[in-house]
């Protein structure tokens, strides 16, 4: 019983940060129709930026709780600086090309960013412990949980609800939905599609960076943190159906639980449990759980 609760708690915590990252990925795919391999790099840049901001805040002698603000500022900075540069300067050139070719474009971007990060931050690991220590441990029903994990769950829920609300209940959101549905028709109705693309990409990258920033306190930030994340978040959005928010949430839960089940019952399977879960879902639902079947061209 206790193991079951632990598996559940670990799985949900893992699913939470995964959802934040995958939400960004699925949003970018929904609007720009690009499966962004470099998403993991932005995640890593977010982690580095968070480490830098937390270190600055500590050097300026700010109170420890402000380190949370530093995490947020780090991801905002990444989204505000890098995302428009990438979208306007690079991706715009390739719009309208084949989906798979666009994957390769972002793969190239991923390679470039991997080295740029090494140039900027070096190869030594960074540690950001301040935010993690803030929350301590929480006792619920005789079990002890890591407070930071619980906070992550809350942030993930807020992100998910926020994006859902923003898309479905605001004017800007409706415009974005129109572009997701058909960029061409939206443009002919007077929507500035280019601006929507930039905005959506910035928001997606913000979520990636936020995921990275929130993870930074739990790991040592060093080269290579982004590599594994890309593929895991791919698995999530593929399971859920590309471009679907509910799908990303369910996908993250499936992947998180599959992984924690493997970790606690049969550790050697940890590395591939995620892909097995994805393969099983795709066998039964070839387009993912929440994807409408596309009409075929005759």
């Amino acid at each position: 019983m206790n193991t079951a609760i632990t598996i559940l708690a670990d799985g949900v915590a893992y699913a939470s940060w995964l959802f934040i990252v995958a939400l960004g990925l699925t949003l970018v795919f929904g609007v720009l129709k690009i499966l962004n391999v470099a998403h993991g790099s932005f995640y890593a840049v977010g982690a580095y930026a968070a480490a830098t901001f937390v270190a600055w805040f500590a050097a300026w002698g700010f109170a420890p709780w402000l380190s949370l603000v530093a995490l947020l500022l780090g991801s905002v900075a990444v989204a505000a600086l890098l995302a428009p540069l990438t979208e306007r300067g690079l991706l715009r050139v390739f719009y309208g090309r084949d989906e798979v070719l666009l994957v390769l474009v972002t793969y190239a971007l991923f390679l470039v960013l991997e080295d740029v990060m090494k140039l900027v931050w070096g190869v030594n690991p960074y540690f950001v412990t301040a935010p993690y220590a803030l929350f301590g441990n929480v006792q619920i029903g005789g079990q002890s949980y890591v407070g930071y994990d619980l906070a992550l769950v809350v942030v993930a829920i807020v992100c998910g609800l926020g994006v859902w609300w923003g898309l479905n209940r605001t004017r800007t959101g409706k415009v974005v939905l129109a572009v997701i549905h058909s960029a061409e028709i939206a443009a002919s109705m007077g929507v500035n599609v280019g601006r929507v693309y930039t905005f959506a990409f910035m928001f997606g990258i913000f979520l990636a960076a936020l995921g990275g920033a929130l993870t930074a306190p739990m790991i040592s930030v060093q080269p290579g943190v982004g590599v594994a994340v890309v593929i895991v978040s791919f698995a999530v959005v593929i399971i859920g159906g590309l471009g679907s928010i509910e799908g990303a949430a369910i996908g993250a839960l499936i992947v998180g639980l599959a992984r924690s089940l493997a970790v606690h019952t049969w550790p050697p399977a940890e590395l591939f449990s995620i892909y097995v879960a994805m393969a099983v879902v795709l066998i039964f639902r070839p387009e993912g759980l929440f994807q409408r079947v596309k009409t075929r061209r005759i």
Partner: protein
Amino acid sequence: MRRAAALGLMVLAALLAGGLLAPKWLLFLIAMSAANGLVSLGIVLMMRGGVVSFGQGLVFAGGGYAAALLSNKLGVSDALLLAGAGGAAAVLLAAPFAPLLARYRGIFFAMLTLALSMVLYGVLMKSEGLGGSDGFNMRRPTLLGFSPSDAWSGYALYALVVTIAVALAVAARVYFDSARGLVALAIRENELRVEYLGASVRRVMALDFVFAAFLGGVGGALAVMALGHIEPQFSYWTTSGEFVFVSILAGHHSVAAVFAASLVLELVRSFSSAYFPNTWQLALGLFLLIVIRFLPQGLGSLFAKLASRAP
């Protein structure tokens, strides 16, 4: 078909003769790029049907591990036999998934194949008997009963790799121009129409996947013989990404372009890792972006253009 075979023989003769003059590092570089080129040739084979596999690391590692294990555990040392065994092992590994994968297209095909290769990566990382994340070394193979001396081992392996590569390249050309090979091009254009015309799209896709697996397995076996070492990285997604890169760089028009592209990648990689050791990925990424931007149809389209311009 005769033209392809004659051209292949000429290229092979030139490569074998040129190899006698070339320095050792160049022989190794060409051998590696030919071995990797075989894997990318498999992707090009699938690309003609409109799908791109992001998981050829699966068959590359499958073939490589099979060859290395046969050599170390069972004492099989003949290079030709090992290459064939690598291809066969990759086919065995991939064939069960072929009917399933034949149903998927686009991103889903790419991601499912990627998932398969990552499952293999996970298994290899955790299997202690296979050296886990460190992998293991392989003994130097013999060739048709001879064990070449140190001075000649590099050339012998080079000769073997280019011979196999040219033979398979000719076979691929013949297949591309065959009826089934041309059906793949039609599928790329519009698969529903192909179905109405009476061809089985799934069978073509499944078979192409198996053929690609064979090419990838042979490539993996040859690569491990050239390197003398194998590790789970063979199956990692970044390795698969490089194979896709080469096939996109080559385009699906020309078989020769695949090997040219593979050599270009190998040259860019080894020169940039020699001259900018910390930023070779950056160089590679920029190179890739430039190619996609300015050569959308790949190097092969350049060849085709030159050919059509000639009188």
